[in-house]
């Protein structure tokens, strides 16, 4: 098995995450798709670190995880605030910039 199979898998997961952002309407599910994208990137990092024999890829992956965690915290707080004021978690509600 090619080690590059991991990279392909990472690419596929990333694409699925990207399309999930575009297709789903629930804000939390959209957020989860973003997390999926970040995870796919992490997989790629780890694989590259293995290819290059350098732990730098894993460090990058580690930092990505930390940042993703912060992002989730703040993002979910925002979603909760949105939900409190609007009683709905749909992203389609924020459509005031219509033409």
């Amino acid at each position: 098995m090619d080690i590059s199979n991991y990279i392909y898998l990472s690419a596929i997961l990333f694409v699925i995450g990207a399309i999930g952002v575009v297709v789903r309407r629930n804000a939390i599910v959209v957020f989860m798709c973003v997390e999926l994208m970040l995870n796919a990137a992490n997989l790629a990092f780890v694989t590259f670190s293995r290819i290059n024999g350098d732990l730098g890829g894993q460090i990058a992956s580690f930092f990505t995880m930390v940042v993703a965690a912060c992002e989730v915290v703040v993002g979910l707080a925002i979603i909760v605030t949105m939900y409190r004021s609007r009683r709905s978690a749909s992203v389609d509600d924020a459509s005031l910039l219509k033409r």
Partner: protein
Amino acid sequence: MTTRTDLVYLITLPLFSSAFLLLLGRIADKWGHFFATAISASTFGIGLYEFFAMRSRSGDSRAATQRIFEWISVGTFKVDASLLLDQLSICFVLLITGVGTLIHIYSIAYMSHDRDRRRFFAYLNLFVAAMLLLVLGDSYLNLYVGWEGVGLASYLLIGFWNERPAYATAAKKAFIANRVGDVGLSLAIMIAFTQFGSVTFAGVKDAAPHASSAALTALGAMLLLAAAGKSAQFPLQSWLGDAMAGPTPVSALIHAATMVTAGVYLITRSNFIFDASSTARLLVVIVGAITLLFGAIVGTAKDDIKKALAASTMSQIGYMILATGLGPVGYAFAIMHLLTHGFFKASMFLGAGSVMHGMNDEVNMRRYGGLGKVMPITAVTFGLGYLAIIGVPPFAGFYSKDKIIETALNAGGARGILLGGAALLGAAITAFYMTRVVVLTFTGKKRWADGTHPHESPSLMLIPIILLSVGSVASGFLLNKGNALVHWLAPVVNAAGAEGGKELLQPNVVSALALGVVVLGVLTAVLKYRGHVPVEAPAGSPLTRFARRDLGQDDFNHRVLVLPGQAITKSLVGMDFHFVDGIVRAVGWVLSYISVSLKKVQNGYVRSYALLMTVGAIALLATIWLVTL
């Protein structure tokens, strides 16, 4: 060729006087007319001075030139603003300034009740300046400047009382008909430049013998078109009758003596062209003959005294044009008739003005009658002019007109008989309608409207008429004495060696014939109008009705020119609106369509924006993919 330095004053004095009087406005109202008349008299003085100076010279040095400034110098096209005073131009200069000054004096009294008298005199001076420039220009282009100037002055003066829409329309009609002729002159100048490389008279004269006959014929035809426009010849004659809407001094000066003779001047000046192209010459005589008869027929049916005199002018100029088409000696006779006509027609117009002045500006001759007793001086002077125009010896018209008839008959062959016959017929009809005018106006029972008290005019009006009628009596004899005018003009028109032509009839026989038809016409008119003249014009025969409508000239112009012209204009407007503006509107429409379509992208949904970002990222990746191929 002598060089003189005072020729330019002939033009600048009246021109600046005109500008001066126009710019000063009401301040100059009290003395403007005197000032203008003085200026006109001083130009006559300069003209006389130049005339005597010219007579004292001889041969080639008789002609005088003055270069004022270099006007156009573009590549090979060089035209100077220069003046040429030769034997032909001096005749015109004396006529214009002399008759012009007399009419200035007349107008002081005639326009005394008019608030805008100063403006009138300014326009008269403008006209004198432009007409002098026309006859003094040494190239077709300089002549054109004067040509346009007299057109402008004519427009301003015909429409002088432009509060009345009909008068303003008459002025416009005159200008537009002139414009058609001006196109001819422009084309002639262009042909001259492209074919001969020069537009000066001398340059074209030198190049004419080597030019192609097609170019010469085209040039001649265009010059004839221009002359027809300015001199109210067929087919551009429709404006002259309506031009009588202007004040009578205007009709006398412009539409009898001077401006309408500009066409004759143009053809005479371009004699080398017409000498070289027999087709153009043929066109000239045809136009002259047709107009001669046209004017005469129309004149018999007009009840308006000024319109009758206008038709008479048209007919007499037809004689002049006919004469210019009859070979080198014909030019001299045309000029002779032009000069004598200037005297008697101006005096008759001024006399008509005097009659109108006494009759509360009534122009309908059916309302005149028996004025001979009340206005004796006017009647006598008018009568002298009448005798001159019908060609009774020893008055002026006899000499000039008979010479034309004679030359026409001597043209040879069928052409000679036709032209001579037309000229004789024209003489008969002229005698008829002029006698009609005289009988209706001055003799017979009074048919005056209530409240008119005809009286003789003031002396300021009578003196010019008297002086002009002296001219109508004596000028013919003096000009013809020893063929004076023919010899005077010979260097200009190459008349030398043209005397020996085959004579169809003896000159005396021709004179007798002419006198005979004149007597016939006079008797017919006297018999017809001696008795009762109805105040309301009777229905008359179909020919009479047709002649009253100017032989259908306005209807023809309307059908042939106005309606198609309007149709073309409408189609152009439509094309402009739909096509040209349509393109502009289409551009705007396309832009707005694009913007409306693009607007739909902004639907406010976050997800569609996210999709757009994804597509953008795909585009970037695709670029990288392509670049690293």
